[in-house]
């Protein structure tokens, strides 16, 4: 039977070609849709978390809900054996007043390690944060009328209600996308911040630039891991709504694909009416014809699967290196805020596998039609 199926496939090569084309095209489209969706979400998250929150942070339990110097934790508590130890960059954060000699403005003071913090990494230009110097967000610098080289005073409350006060030269100015942060952000070297707030070797937490499969296992009892979903609720909501809408589009794509495949299968079956009838008239059992059709479907599917994954995967890889660009006002707005204005396609191989199997499932489901067709076929009419 396998032999007959194999010969059937090559007896009419153009028909087979169209079937393979239909199925592999469907797989390619399904892969591309998902890769673009995921790529868009990934790039938006990366752009929007690199400013302040980080993609994830390790902190004392409950710190995000109730921040403050009193809830900081010892720098040495994060065990070097923890899987993400190397990627985690420590920070000390608190509010204090920034004074230029004439006026004071409340600022969010962040002490960080300039060589490992994702915030610094996010800006192509390496920020200059030497020990004892400070970096101002652009909005705050214009409100304070402060330029690089000016000296500012930070005044506030330190650890255990001590007085925190220090004098720092402005060493750099930073453009921040979020308007509120742009009016508040002040960056210091971690050591200087610890000295300012008299916390000793304590930190508010550790920042990570990715949140993939981040787990709390291996962390001491008092620490927890939170990610951007907790920290930027509007983004979580926006992406959630978008993924539901994407899901709808995906279902519609499957519908369109199913319809295209159904059309192809129907026409192929109709074309072969005579052939099947002849086989029936010669006394071939319906069971055998059906198993022949199934084998043909399987062979065509496997070839199409390989081609579909190859083409879809290749385009995804290309689209990752040569990303799609947003157009018009959207692109300008994103660029103005320092957010990525392109969509690099996702290259996760799981997408290729999941999507191709989804399409394959549809095609196998549809191959019920030729089976049903053969089952009700009457041999007598054939001539």
């Amino acid at each position, binding site marked *: 039977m396998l032999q007959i199926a194999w010969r059937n496939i090559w007896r009419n090569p153009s028909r087979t070609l169209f079937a393979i084309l239909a199925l592999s095209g469907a797989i390619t489209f399904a892969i591309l849709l998902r890769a673009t969706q995921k790529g868009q979400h990934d790039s938006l998250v990366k752009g929007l978390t690199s400013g302040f929150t980080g993609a994830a942070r390790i902190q004392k339990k409950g710190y995000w809900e109730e921040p403050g110097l009193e809830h900081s934790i010892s720098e040495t508590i994060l065990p070097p054996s923890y899987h993400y130890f190397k990627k985690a960059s420590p920070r000390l954060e608190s509010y204090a007043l920034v004074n230029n000699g004439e006026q004071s403005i409340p*600022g969010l003071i962040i002490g960080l390690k300039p060589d490992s913090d994702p915030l610094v990494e996010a800006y192509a230009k390496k920020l200059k944060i030497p020990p004892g110097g400070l970096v101002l967000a652009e909005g705050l610098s214009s409100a304070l009328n402060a330029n690089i080289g000016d000296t500012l005073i930070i005044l506030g409350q330190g650890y255990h209600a001590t007085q925190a006060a220090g004098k720092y030269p402005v060493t750099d100015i930073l453009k921040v996308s979020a308007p509120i942060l742009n009016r508040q952000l002040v960056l210091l070297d971690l050591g200087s911040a610890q000295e300012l707030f008299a916390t000793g070797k304590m930190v508010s937490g550790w920042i990570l630039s990715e949140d993939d499969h981040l787990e709390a296992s291996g962390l001491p009892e008092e620490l927890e891991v939170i990610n951007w979903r907790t920290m930027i609720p509007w983004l979580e909501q926006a992406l959630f709504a978008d993924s539901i809408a994407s899901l709808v589009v995906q279902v519609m794509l499957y519908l369109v694909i199913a319809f295209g495949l159904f059309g192809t299968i129907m026409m192929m079956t109709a074309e072969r009416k005579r052939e099947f009838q002849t086989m029936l008239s010669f006394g071939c059992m319906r069971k055998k014809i059906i198993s022949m059709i199934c084998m043909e479907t399987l062979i065509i599917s496997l070839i199409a699967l390989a081609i579909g994954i190859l083409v879809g995967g290749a385009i995804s890889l290309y689209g990752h290196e040569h990303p799609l660009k947003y157009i018009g006002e959207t692109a300008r707005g994103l660029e103005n805020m320092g957010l990525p204005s392109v969509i690099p396609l996702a290259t996760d191989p799981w997408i290729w596998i999941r999507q191709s199997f989804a399409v394959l499932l549809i095609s196998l489901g549809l191959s019920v039609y030729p089976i049903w067709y053969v089952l009700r076929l009457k041999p007598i009419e054939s001539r």
Partner: protein
Amino acid sequence: MILALAWRNLWRNKFRTLITIMGIIIGIWAANTAMSISYGLNEPRIENAIQFGTGDIQVHSNNFRQSFSLKDSIPEIQSVFSEIRTMEGVGNLEVRTRSIGLISTLTNGVGTELVGIQDMNANVLEIPKLITDGEWLSEKDKNPIILGQSLAERLKVKVGTKVVVHFQGPDEQLIAGAFKIKGIYTSPFPGQEISQVFLLSRDLESIHSNGSIGRQEIIIRNEGTDQNLIQNIQNAFPNLTVTGWKEAAPEMGYTAMALEQGMFGFIILMVLALGFGLANSGLMALLERKNELSMLRNMGMDRIQRMRMILTEQMLIILFALPVGLLLSWLTISILGITGLDFTAAALGFKAFGMPSYVYPRLAPRVYGILSIFVILISLASSLFIGFWTTRKAFMPQKGIHG
């Protein structure tokens, strides 16, 4: 002649024609419906942001959006206010005091935006609707303040607690005043609860005690953000900065725009898949008609005529499919727009994201048009391809009719 031939060809094989018609109808329907569901999911979120957070249009002095300082107030704001009120397309509007400050208790302090309300009954932004504990501001109280639920939790305060508000006066002196929490609000606009507190302009003024603190903002509602209206107001007041909601909440605004553009892209991808399917099954159908086409050629029909015949067939199909597809989309969207699409059963966790699990699809007529034109263009392109491919010389068998 060609029209008659095409018409008869279509009826000769009803089954094949029906498949193509159905394909285009499904394409139009799927594109419109998917887009309407996307709008239904996303627009309420944006409306929340506009209704409670940003308004449709904001007017500030030029420097304000950088400084957020009381000193950057709008000069002669009452006359600006009256003039904008008479402009066409302007709905409700309100004057507010805006600045940033630090809210603190004995143990904790958080930086936030201070929003000073001048007219408690204006309520252009419907914050009073959001009060879940206590009451909205009133003239009778002394130094009342409204905090968001998350901020109250962070500061561990409740209705009746006193908090200290630090802010900078227009003369750049730091001022502190004690306020009593009058109410707590819960906002569907994520992040607002932390970032905005509401108090009375009058109280900021009396704490400052050193003359007027000015007014920094006029906030305007209209029917949908109208880019022309923003431009008109800007033209009328060249010395002020007029911004739409997108600039007021730029991260959210441009993310929303990026996602909308992406959604259009996905739907275009879906329609391309449809075009691919149509081309594919169309070519297969014409494979069957090899003999017919060869015969027509042998009878003296040239390539252009044959292509015209095939294209006319496709045009007839599109002419029939377009109105049906549009009607079907319009019916689906209108009915779902009233009944709502219930996602509760899908258990996707709408509740956890603070979203209602009923989605009301909606689609602007303009978008119906854009999407349908796109489906038509793609199906035309696929028929052109079919026509071109099947009229090639190589496609024809040597003999017109098999013996």
